[in-house]
Each structure stands twice: as C-alpha cells, then as structure tokens.
C-alpha cells in the first residue's frame, strides 16, 4: 500500500472511536440534552474522519469530494435535527439534568 492509502486507513481507524464514544454517550448520559450533545458531536467528527479516510483510499479526487459533500450534508442535517429535538423537548418541559 502506498503512503496515502496508509494515511486513509489511519483516518478511518481514528474515526471509529468517535462513533463508539458517541454511542456510549447516547446510552449512558442522564438526559436527552447531554445524549444529543454526545451523539451529534461524536458522530459528526467520526463520519468526517471516515469519509476523508475512504476518500484517500479511493485514490480519486472526485470520489473524495463526493464523500466530503456527503459529510457536509450530514453536518447540516444532524445539526438541524439535534436542534429541533432539543428545542421540542425544552418547549414540552423536559428539564435539563441537574437543574
């Protein structure tokens, strides 16, 4: 494997713990706001690293840009979705943990 492919593999491996920790946060954190916080942040970073790694491994610039476009769309969608869930929970009177 070339240096770029090794770098890609490293990126993918580096992205996996973010997914894992995001899922652990979703399962273990005490209320909806902290869970959303863990899940959105962890998954967004993890997906970015995995997309970049897969793009580097594909060895094609067009493929890399497509994967990064998927990541940007996911960033927009997950930020909006998480904000909507949190605002809806707040307006329905779900109190943040510890308050």
């Amino acid at each position: 494997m070339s240096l770029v492919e090794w770098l890609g593999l490293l990126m993918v491996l580096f992205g996996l713990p973010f997914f894992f920790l995001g899922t652990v946060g979703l399962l273990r954190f005490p209320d909806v706001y902290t869970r959303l916080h863990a899940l959105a942040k962890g998954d967004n970073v993890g997906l970015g690293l995995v997309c970049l790694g897969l793009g580097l491994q594909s060895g094609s610039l067009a493929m890399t840009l497509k994967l990064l476009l998927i990541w940007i769309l996911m960033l927009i969608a997950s930020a909006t979705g998480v904000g909507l869930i949190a605002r809806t929970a707040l307006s329905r009177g779900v109190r943040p943990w510890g308050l």
Partner: protein
Amino acid sequence: MDALVPLFDALLGALLLWLAWQSIFAADLFRAVVSFMIFGLLMALAWVRLEAPDIALAEAAIGAGVTGALLLSALGRLPRERYAEAAQHILSHSYWLLFWAPVVLLAWFLWSLEAAPPSPPGLGEMVAIHQPAAGVDNPVTAVLLAFRALDTLLEIGVLLLGSLAIWSLGPSPWSTGPAMPSPALPAMARALFPAFVLVSVYLLWRGSHAPGGAFPAGAVMGAGGVLMLLAGARPWLTGGEQGPWRWLLTLGLGTMLVVASVTQFAGYVFFQYPSDWSGRLITLLELAAGLSIALLLFALYLGGQPPVRWRDRGWQ
C-alpha cells in the same frame, strides 16, 4: 479481508430479522415506526449487497424516507389513548401467524436449496438479447418502461388511486406557517431544496443508462416537498378545480395511456414502440411519470384534500 464479507452479510441479515420483529411486535408504536425506517435503510444496503442498486435507491427513498415520514406524521396525529389500545392489539395471536408463516416458509425454502444452486431461471438473458431494441442502455429501465410497461402503468395507477382515496377522506389537516420556534429548519429547507431538485433531475436523466429513473427521482422530489411543508412553506399543490394540479397528478398515467393507445392505432401492439422512437418515448414517459410520482407522494403526505387557498397558521 474477504473473510469479513460473509460475516457482514450474516450480521445484516440478522439485524433485518430483528428489526422486522421490532417493527411488528414493539409495544411502543414510535419504536415500531423507527424500527421500520431503519429496516428500510438496511434493506437498501442488502439490495446493494445483492448488486441491485436500482431497487436499493427505490427502497431507500420510498421504503425508508417517504413511508417513514407518512408513518411518523400519522403517529403524531394519533390520540394518546389509541396508543395503548393499538399496542395490545398488535400482540394478538393472528399477528404471530403472520410473522411465523413466512419464516417457516423461508426456512423450508433454504432447507430445500441444493448445495450448488442451479443457474437462475430468470429472464436476464432475454432482456440482454432484446435490450438494444428498447433504445435505452439501462436494462432495468428497459424492463420497467418497455418490456413490462404495463406493470409500471398499473403501479402509477395504484399511486393515483391511493391519493384519490385520501383526497376523498376530507380536507388536509395541514396548515402552513411556522409551527416551531426554531429558525434552523426553515433555513435548512430553503438551503437544501435546490439540492433535492438537482438530485431528482440527475436521477431522472441517469435512468436511461444507469441505476436511477422515475421512481427514485419522484421520491426524492416528493421528500423535498415534504421537508418544505414541515418547515412551514406554503405548498404549490392546491385542491382547486381550475388549477393545473389535477392534470399534473394524472400526467404520468395519462401519458403512458396515450402513448400505448396511439402506438396501437398506428399498427403496433399495446405498449410496443416504433423502434426509431423508442428511446425518446421512454424519456418522455420517465419525465411524465417522475413529475406525477413526486406530486402524488406529496399529495399522499398531505393526508387529505388540500384547500383551494392555503391559510397561514402564524406563530404559535
């Protein structure tokens, strides 16, 4: 690395079975709906593994996206006490039969399979032989709009009948305007709607030579409309008798019927195209069908006849 592929397939199959179980038997309806949506996404992945990207596209767009949105919005309108009643109903014995009969059939089928399966008795070779006559490079499009165009005609007819039935149920419960205090959703919908249009047109254009076509394109476009509706936009689609909407809703079915009848009067068989015109006719049919499917799916989501003029809901 190759040893991991069967492991992945086995995991995918087991997850699909578990999600199917959850979407039928989960006591909480919300959980059942979410399981069904994830089932749709993983089913699309399974179709990709079976090298059927056309069905994967349709499954992801219609099975997970549009159907999931329909189920979620139906769930949001269900009164609370109906929740528990439905949950009890779900666990009755007849549903167990519904679940186990296909499982037993599948197990029997797998058991009776030979160790080395014979070559598939499908019509793949016939399609490959006759595809040049259809005038399109994608075998799936050739089957959908030339060889088995009658099936597609009936599918669009079913969609039209479904939205007719929904219109006859009563007025649409939707009213437009911002329902939520968050400015993020309208901003995102405005920013992303051009991307929905672009992807939809691309899928339609791609259909003639690669996986794509009218159904995925229409589903993506319909989903874009649903997103705009959720963000509080005023839909274009109205129930007015004078407007163009009734014509557009029937455009797909109408164009197919016109093409099929005209070619019949010109001396061909029902749905046999003149060979010089075949490619162009199929493109025309795809365009009409895609437009109609997008509007029909959106009309299904409205859940009733849209008003002649949309009222603004205003800030809550």
